[in-house]
């Protein structure tokens, strides 16, 4: 169990502790084919997405390259395909392969950005609630309760409308990526806060915390320098799941027309724009970005599963 290992190793230097952990992870990783495959797929997708300007045959943001007359061309294995467009084109005549690459980049950016924001908010609030306790704890956790009792999607829709209302819709669409990071970040911080709080409560009464307190360290320092490192493994495990969730949330918002605009599409807005054409037989416009989204999220989720098994952290349940 992690509790025993944590307390017994708390006195050891963090560097060595990390190395031990790493070597176990490495050992487990070497034996786990699924984890290897997932990591490979995930890294490939990240590289492809962020190198999309180099890889993509066309630049979908360069509107001058788009020709409406070559719209809805099928992918290469179907009759009527055009050699220039390996995966076909969408309803506007954009090369699907290029736009999917760029779209993946947008989705990843929002996913990672939102999780960083969630973690910052959640860890801070969780530490405060767990360590300070009392009224701060009650207020923060009640807030988290209320927010969690609504689903992320609902919160995101409402937060999105709020942001739009205060900043104006012109501003919103100009900084759509930032806005979505903000919305999804604000909507899911309680996940972190609860987990961190639970771990803090477990750590709080351990000897090393008492010792630090006796030594006269300020609570901020104790929280961030001593308690936080010992709650890292649940945070780490949650983060993988949360990245996958954030990517899905973004896709859902965009699918509802409340996220990325079609001129600057993420995978979700690509799926949305293609859905209008599925009835007329052009399934590839929606299902190809859909498949990419699934592979991306699946590889992250499987990595998260593996991490959970390896680290075996105490996660907050229910």
């Amino acid at each position, binding site marked *: 169990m992690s509790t025993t290992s944590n307390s017994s190793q708390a006195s050891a230097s963090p560097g060595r502790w990390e190395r031990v952990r790493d070597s176990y992870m490495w050992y487990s990783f070497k034996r786990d084919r699924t984890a290897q495959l997932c990591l490979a797929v995930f890294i490939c997708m990240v590289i492809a997405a962020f190198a999309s300007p180099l890889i993509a045959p066309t630049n979908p943001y360069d509107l001058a390259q788009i020709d409406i007359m070559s719209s809805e061309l099928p992918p290469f294995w179907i009759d009527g395909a055009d050699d220039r467009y390996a995966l076909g084109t969408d309803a506007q005549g954009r090369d699907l392969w290029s736009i999917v690459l760029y779209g993946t980049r947008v989705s990843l950016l929002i996913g990672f950005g939102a999780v960083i924001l969630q973690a910052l908010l959640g860890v801070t609030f969780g530490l405060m609630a767990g360590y300070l306790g009392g009224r701060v704890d*009650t207020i923060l*956790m009640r807030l988290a*309760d*209320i927010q969690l*009792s*609504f*689903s992320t*999607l*609902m919160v995101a*829709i*409402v937060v999105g*409308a*709020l942001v*739009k*209302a*205060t900043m*104006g*819709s012109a501003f919103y669409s100009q900084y759509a990526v930032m806005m979505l990071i903000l919305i999804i970040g604000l909507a899911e911080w309680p996940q972190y806060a609860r987990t961190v709080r639970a771990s803090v409560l477990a750590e709080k009464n351990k000897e090393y915390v008492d010792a630090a307190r006796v030594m006269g360290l300020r609570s901020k320092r104790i929280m961030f320098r001593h308690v936080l490192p010992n709650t890292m493994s649940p945070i780490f495990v949650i983060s993988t799941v949360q990245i*996958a969730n954030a990517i*899905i949330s973004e*896709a*859902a918002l965009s*699918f*509802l*027309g*409340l996220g990325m605009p079609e001129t600057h599409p993420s995978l979700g807005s690509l*799926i949305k724009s293609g*859905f209008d054409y*599925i*009835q007329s*037989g052009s*399934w590839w416009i*929606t*299902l190809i970005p*859909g498949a990419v*989204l*699934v592979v991306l*999220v*699946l590889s992250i*989720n*499987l990595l998260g*599963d593996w991490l959970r098994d390896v680290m075996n952290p105490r996660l907050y*349940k*229910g």
Partner: protein
Amino acid sequence: MIAFLIKRLMHAILVMFVISVLAFAIQDNLGDPVQQMVGQSVPESEREEIRERLGLNDPFLVQYARFARNAVQGDFGYSYFYREPALEVIARHLPATLELVFAATLIIVLFSVPIGVYSAIKPRSPISRLFMGVSIIGISIPVFLTAIVLIQIFAIGVTVTLFPESTGWGAWLNAFFSTEGNMPSFGRGYDLVNVVGNWDTNLATWNGLQHLVLPAVSLASIMLPLFIRLIRAEMMEVLQSEYVKYARAKGISMRRVYFVHALKNTMLPVITVGGVQIGTMVAYTILTETVFQWPGMGLMFLDAINRADIPLIVTYLMIVGVIFVVTNTIVDLIYGLVNPTVKLTGKPA
């Protein structure tokens, strides 16, 4: 117990208050409802008159106070689009959503319990591994994508020509993987049977059930894997416990141990999580209903956002807030009944 209920009531009131203030704060920027209520050649002066009459020009606090006063009396205002009381509009859309959630819940319960239990009892069997693999794929597919794939396969149809059609086996495989489509994927159908009031049910006719299948399956797809994994995890933990070992040692049949003793203790956390998740499912219906054009509350809510139908948006959010609080309360009550050691008045753990 009573203290607990009062506390919950306060909680509910707080939630509704926050929602109503938020919804009121955003209303100005959702758009101008008057634009949609008059013809294109009606001059600005007439529009101003209507705006004045609807009280849209009053200061924020005045508008909010008016809303709150009426809301307390059960009057949430008129939907701008439907020209009906917002509560009635929601009441009309509610049965469709509830039936969808009910059908999805049924699917979840029917599949998650046996699969979860089986893969806990035999964690190493290939079938368990398959279930676990499929369930993580299920978690990774967003609900709207599941819906789209279902539509493509079962409503539109897929023609596979991957295998050589000239050979017998190729033709057979092509036919095997091709689907005809024709499953309804659109709306509730019109063979609905009126139960009572404005509740028309899909559950009473073949046509109605057919319309329900795809939306319910796609809605269930998001929760099913979660429940399978949850039941499996809880069950495995229970099977390790002393009393199960004791029961086994006493010579009680394995079947009885699994399905009576272990399952009963597994269900406790499952009910807690499940109750909350079913509340969440009401929100997921926004996506499912949009894809299948299922005329329930979710679709209505999204339309209301696009139409800036403020009274309807506010009312919907408040109703959903109440649904969440109520399900959470019921879950806690059940939890308290099943497990008396939980003190209902207790602070969050």
